[in-house]
């Protein structure tokens, strides 16, 4: 059955057919989506946009094509989603403008509509990108202009549909990004589907018309402004069935744990039982696995049976989801570091990761690496101050040798800087307990320095040569206990030296002992030390931290 005129009934059928076709092919269109943002939702967006238009047409009681086209344009405008949806709404806006007032359309009207549709679509953008849906509608309209005078609407629509397909094929060549991937433009494909459906409908060819009205959920999604919110953030972390995104790469046949030959199907089947979103890709040497599972360990063990693990990556998706919901921006690439302005920068000189971490946990914003054997230069300190981008700075030298450099740095720094004269790491930590970021700089300094005298700091280190200092004889490689800068005890045994040193530091008022063990000591030795100290005074509170500092196996503070 061929038709020479499009009446309102015919128009309704065309829209219905187009909407159904688009719905059926939404996934396919999604898969083509690489431009402008490859998020794979062009098909979905076009489908929902057109569905909204179709809904308006279905609800319209009009019996003229002009009015129905108007309803369609309105519905598309209201439901427009995504770039392609917006363009689609413009195409039909132009079309509606052209056919306004017409009860039926003949070939000439249809042609005029297509030409106007193209014009409107192009006019809404400053620099039209060729190789998109725009190219497709333009190709269709150009063909129409050439042939409309000789054809009826059904034949014209067929010709237009073919021209649209041709134009669509060109999109791959027109847009570099499409050529790279070797696909046609997804939005253009969507429009080609629509025109094809129009042609099929007009020519009485079978169009698989499912029930194409959007279900209530889709409709809600379109109308509700909330649809702009990412769907992802709607997912409750607890609703994620499999919590760990696990990815491994296995070198087949390598390693000690190999128990079996790699065979794709059994390998795949076992993993399929462990979770979903399974992807297994292999060649002769390597098999890559991606799976969402509750048991990443089982996946690893399974992989190890056929080879060794070249790479392993396990992400807790529930945690990621929580982060998304919390609008956390931790998803930035790890290497990206953007300066974080603090109002007040607290800069501590310290060595050892653990000490740095301890300081950070106390509120220190920047650490300058340095200490007894490698004092930072004035320039290092100035750089740290200026790079902090804060409004003011507090410096904890944690070593009397650095006081001068710090004073110099404070003078030339861009921002007001004060120095809290901490001589040792433990003093620095005690000082941080009194740090009040909201106070005035001078008050911060006096508050932080106020308690320093109550803290005794002990450091244990190894003598590098024979010497005599403060009436203490020291042999090379002996351990020395230094209390507030004075060598107090020596011993060839590290624990003995430390125990004696702590004993010398304790007095009646002592309440708390903090032990920070560094390189050259370990937790077991620290525990031994703690036991020794407990024997001296069992009422003491003793804390042990890992400081990982060089040179000093033990740093001890007594308060």
């Amino acid at each position: 059955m061929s038709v020479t005129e499009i009446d309102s009934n015919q128009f309704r059928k065309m829209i219905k057919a187009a909407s159904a076709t688009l719905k059926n092919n939404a996934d396919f269109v999604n898969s083509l989506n690489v431009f402008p943002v490859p998020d794979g939702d062009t098909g979905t967006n076009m489908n929902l946009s057109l569905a909204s238009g179709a809904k308006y047409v279905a609800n319209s009681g009009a019996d003229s094509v002009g009015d129905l086209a108007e309803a369609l344009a309105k519905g598309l405008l209201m439901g427009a989603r995504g770039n392609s949806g917006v363009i689609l709404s413009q195409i039909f806006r132009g079309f509606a403008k052209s056919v306004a007032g017409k009860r039926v359309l003949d070939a000439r009207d249809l042609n005029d509509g297509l030409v106007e549709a193209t014009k409107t679509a192009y006019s809404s953008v400053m620099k039209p990108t060729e190789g998109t849906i725009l190219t497709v509608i333009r190709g269709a309209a150009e063909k129409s202009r050439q042939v409309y005078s000789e054809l009826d609407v059904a034949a014209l629509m067929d010709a237009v549909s073919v021209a649209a397909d041709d134009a669509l094929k060109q999109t791959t060549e027109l847009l570099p990004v499409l050529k790279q991937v070797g696909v046609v433009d997804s939005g253009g494909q969507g429009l080609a589907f629509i025109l094809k459906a129009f042609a099929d409908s007009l020519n009485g060819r079978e169009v698989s018309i499912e029930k194409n009205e959007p279900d209530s959920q889709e409709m809600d999604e379109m109308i509700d402004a909330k649809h702009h919110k990412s769907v992802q953030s709607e997912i409750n972390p607890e609703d994620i069935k499999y919590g760990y995104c696990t990815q491994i790469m296995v070198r087949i046949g390598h390693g000690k744990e190999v128990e079996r030959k790699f065979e794709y199907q059994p390998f795949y089947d076992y993993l399929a039982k462990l979770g979903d979103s399974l992807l297994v890709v292999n060649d002769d040497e390597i098999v890559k696995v991606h799976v969402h599972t509750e048991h990443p360990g089982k996946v690893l063990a399974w992989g190890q049976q056929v080879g060794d693990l070249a790479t392993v990556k396990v992400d807790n998706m529930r945690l990621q989801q929580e982060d998304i919901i919390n609008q956390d921006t931790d998803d930035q690439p790890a290497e990206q570091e953007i300066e974080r302005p603090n109002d007040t920068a607290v800069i501590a000189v310290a060595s050892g990761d653990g000490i740095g971490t301890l300081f950070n946990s106390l509120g220190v914003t920047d650490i300058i690496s340095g200490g007894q054997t490698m004092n930072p230069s004035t320039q290092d300190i100035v750089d740290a101050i200026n790079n902090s981008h804060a409004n003011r700075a507090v410096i904890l030298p944690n070593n009397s040798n650095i006081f001068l450099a710090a004073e110099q740095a404070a003078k030339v720094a861009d921002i007001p800087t004060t120095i809290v004269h901490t001589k040792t790491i433990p003093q620095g930590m005690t000082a941080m307990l009194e740090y009040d970021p909201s106070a005035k700089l001078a008050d911060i300094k006096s508050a932080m320095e106020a308690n320093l005298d109550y803290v005794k700091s002990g450091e244990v280190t190894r003598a590098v040569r024979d010497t005599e200092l403060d009436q203490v004889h020291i042999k090379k490689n002996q351990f020395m206990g230094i209390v507030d800068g004075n060598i107090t005890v020596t011993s060839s045994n590290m624990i003995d030296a430390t125990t004696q040193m702590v004993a010398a530091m304790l007095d009646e008022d002592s309440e708390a002992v903090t032990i920070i063990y560094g390189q050259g000591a370990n937790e077991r030795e620290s525990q031994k030390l703690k036991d020794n100290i407990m024997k001296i005074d069992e009422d003491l509170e003793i804390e042990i931290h890992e400081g990982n500092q060089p040179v000093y196996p033990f740093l001890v503070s007594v308060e």
Partner: protein
Amino acid sequence: MAVKIKTKYGVVDISSDVISSVVGSATTDNYGVVGMASKNQLRDNVNSILKNDNYSKGVVVRQENSGIAIEVNIIVSYGTKISEVCRNVQSKVKYNLETMLGITANTVNVVVQGVQVLND
């Protein structure tokens, strides 16, 4: 103001002009955006559409705690769904910043400074 990116070979500084250009181009690529508008219309005189080389006048880049905040000023075409055009701008700007510069924008605020009505 510049964004610093640390790599194992050193530091990369990206000036806000670069960011503005990327943001501006990403914005005007979007269907329905007729052009960029100046962020300071009074000072820069009327709501003229900005040319390629002064996109930066229409883009504000602000440093925030853990990323950057972008503001783009645009003029849109009459008859488009403005909210959707803006949303497209947001996602494209964010996407281009991430792919081209490796910068994550915390927020992309779109200010519609004008609507261009076309002569029929």
